[in-house]
């Protein structure tokens, strides 16, 4: 999107660019630009740098430590970050539980939890999905039974990203009778990961990464003071949070940077009859993806402009999630096609380093398959594309859903 910036906005863009040039550690930048896995320390190091600058929570209201930037400023920020190769923000604290706490938490909870989220001293994970409650999240069966001033929590959460890094988990749990299916029996609990009775088991994905986990709760005692808002209202809070999450899943700026890289690479690749970028089939796919991405950028911009700082966008954010995911996955596919023969090798990090150093294998394509594989989860997480369409049908188009079809 080429927009005319005001003098102030230009100054802001220059400030952001200078900040990134000065503060983004070179080793992190290299990892990001090469599509390598980042470890916990990498993410925390970067988020702490942003925290020192006061730019950790760009979506939060000013009073809680946010920036209250305009939609244009957020756009500039995202774009500059992607161009510079800055790590993505881990969303669970800053984009997900943070807004729930400042919107629905007590004063005491805000003071207790928000500083650790801002400073990234606390690492949060999300306990929503369960083995038998995926798309149908409201059917979750992890229970929290009152016992004096505590709840006793039992159940299993799954697909929990970075649970092995986390010291806190925010969970949806069932506080009503065991057989109620309706969402009014669900509460929102904050649980320390070092609680007695919690075990974390890794789930390895097809890209070989350990990001996801199962989290087992075996008679875990959680103070009622860790419940957000009213008992039985957790579903309402979670829906607001999901809107925040979705709106943050477009990855427009990252996709733009990747498209630039893709075109540059395709310029350098020879095919039988010329350069890859001049292959009509490939070039048409690149153009179509670019058109879709430019439109997505504007759809996102319209949503951001219509949303007050600190609040969640409406159900239209489902459009952003669906299209953002589609575009990102199309770019993954284009990179696979671009790699040609070299889309095949799948080399572990240590051997890859050696082979690249010895010039045995080209460096640019070393993580192509890995990135494509890893990103297949994008259309499943944060509410699958199918669930997003259900939300659009129900909450935007006003279709009444069949009794069995849930909203999320």
């Amino acid at each position, binding site marked *: 999107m080429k927009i005319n910036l005001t003098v102030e906005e230009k100054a802001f863009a220059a400030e952001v660019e200078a900040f990134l040039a000065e503060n983004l550690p070179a080793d992190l930048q290299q990892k990001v630009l090469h599509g390598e896995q980042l470890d916990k320390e990498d993410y925390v190091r970067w988020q702490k740098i942003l925290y020192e600058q006061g730019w950790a929570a760009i979506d939060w209201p000013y009073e809680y430590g946010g920036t209250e930037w305009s939609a244009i400023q957020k756009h500039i920020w995202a774009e500059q970050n992607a161009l510079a190769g800055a790590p993505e923000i881990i969303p669970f604290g800053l984009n997900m539980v943070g807004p729930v706490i400042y919107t629905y938490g007590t004063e005491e909870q805000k003071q207790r939890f928000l500083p650790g989220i801002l400073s990234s001293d606390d690492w949060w994970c999300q306990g929503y999905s369960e083995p038998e409650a995926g798309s149908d999240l409201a059917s979750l069966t992890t229970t929290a039974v009152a016992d004096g001033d505590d709840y006793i929590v039992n159940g299993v959460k799954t697909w929990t990203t970075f649970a092995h890094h986390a010291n806190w988990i925010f969970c949806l749990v069932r506080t009503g009778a065991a057989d109620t299916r309706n969402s009014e029996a669900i509460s929102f609990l904050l649980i320390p990961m070092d609680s007695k009775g919690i075990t974390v088991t890794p789930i390895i994905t097809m890209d070989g990464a350990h990001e996801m986990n199962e989290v087992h709760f075996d008679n875990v005692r959680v103070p009622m003071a860790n419940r957000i808002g009213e008992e039985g209202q957790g579903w309402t809070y979670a829906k607001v949070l999901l809107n925040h999450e979705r709106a943050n899943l477009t990855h427009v700026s990252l996709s733009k940077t990747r498209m630039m890289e893709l075109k540059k690479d395709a310029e350098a690749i020879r095919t039988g009859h010329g350069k890859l970028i001049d292959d009509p089939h490939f070039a048409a796919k690149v153009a179509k993806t670019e058109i879709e991405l430019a439109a997505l950028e504007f759809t996102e911009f319209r949503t951001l402009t219509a949303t007050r700082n600190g609040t969640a966008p409406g159900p239209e954010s489902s459009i952003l999630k669906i299209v953002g995911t589609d575009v990102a996955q199309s770019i993954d596919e284009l990179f696979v096609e671009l790699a040609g023969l070299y889309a095949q090798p799948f080399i572990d990090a240590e051997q890859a380093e050696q*082979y690249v150093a010895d010039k045995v294998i080209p460096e640019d394509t070393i993580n192509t398959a890995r990135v494509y*594989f890893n990103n*297949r989860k994008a259309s*499943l997480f944060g509410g699958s594309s199918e669930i997003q369409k259900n939300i659009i049908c129900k909450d935007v188009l006003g279709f009444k859903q069949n009794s069995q079809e849930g909203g999320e």
Partner: protein
Amino acid sequence: MNFLPSEAQLALKASIAEFIDKECDLGKRKEIIASSEGFSASNWQHMSELGWLKVAFSSSDGGTGGTALDRMILMEEIGRGLIVEPILASTILSGSLITEVCSEATKAKLLPQILSGEQTFASGLYEPDGRFDLSWVATKAEPRRVGFNISGRKSVVLNGGDADQLLISARTGGGDNSPGGISLFLLDQSMEGVHVHKYKNADGHAAAEVILDSVFVDRRTNISELGEALPGIEAAVDIATLALCAEALGAMAVLNDKTLQHCKTRKQFGVPLGSFQSLQHRMADMLIEYEQAKSAVLYAVVMADENHGMAAKEISGAKYRVGVAARKIAQEAIQLHGASGVTDDLDISHYFRRLTTIESQFGNSDFHLNRYMQLSKEED
């Protein structure tokens, strides 16, 4: 036109299916992949004892089959079983190179080694700067008084890490991408200057970069008519491409079956996922993709068998159609399985990985679409 399997072909199919049922599960496959050889010697021995390797070749070459339909039936089952043993790389690709390029004397010497499974072969035909272009051969074989001095590199050589013998295309004349001047050489890893860098592909199959650094070889290592190997290389790669398409069909059939099963049994919102019409239509589309891909492959098979193997256009058409279907079916199988589809624990992601890798082997979809267009133009 015959595309229905014979009694013998049906028997072969049953024998492979039985073996796969008994011997091939995901746990064993992971162990095999993790081993340094990258395939199981005992599986390989079984496969040769059961006669699978001979099916790819005609009786005049010492085999028991040799039609495109024979290879299709074999490879569909290989695809179903997600087999990592090098039937494609060693038996079909390298074996066909020998039948298509070499003299009767060379065939008589080398084919028995391949058909018995006693030795495995690998073929290095692609290069880092050539993408999928078989005529791009920058590897030079310079004539010396008593033989050749070969230098260059070969990309993503399937089974290249542990093969007993390496077949390599190298240029004995002409410019980097001229069709004339390409010859075929038989090398092995023990030769001085042959550097083999092993790795695993995304589907777990073993592959390697082969770097040839002033490899001095005697004249007998050139196993083609000097400078005349390209047409035979293209014919052999077409045979292997069609076999690979059949393997993809087998893998797609499994994904469709398993996805349907999952949607019929997995309950969400109190009902099976499969009760949602939007998901039923997705599975109908997956079936349509599979059937169309299968027909494109069978059409190429029939054309090849009726025209002495000459079916380049139809084979490119099949590879393109299979590529489109494979991507769609693999992605949809994961999407309809939900997050469990992306895990290493479930076989769905392993089929996904194999199908993704197949897309990039012997030319990706765009390459074959372009080749189809080119060949159509030449026909007119």
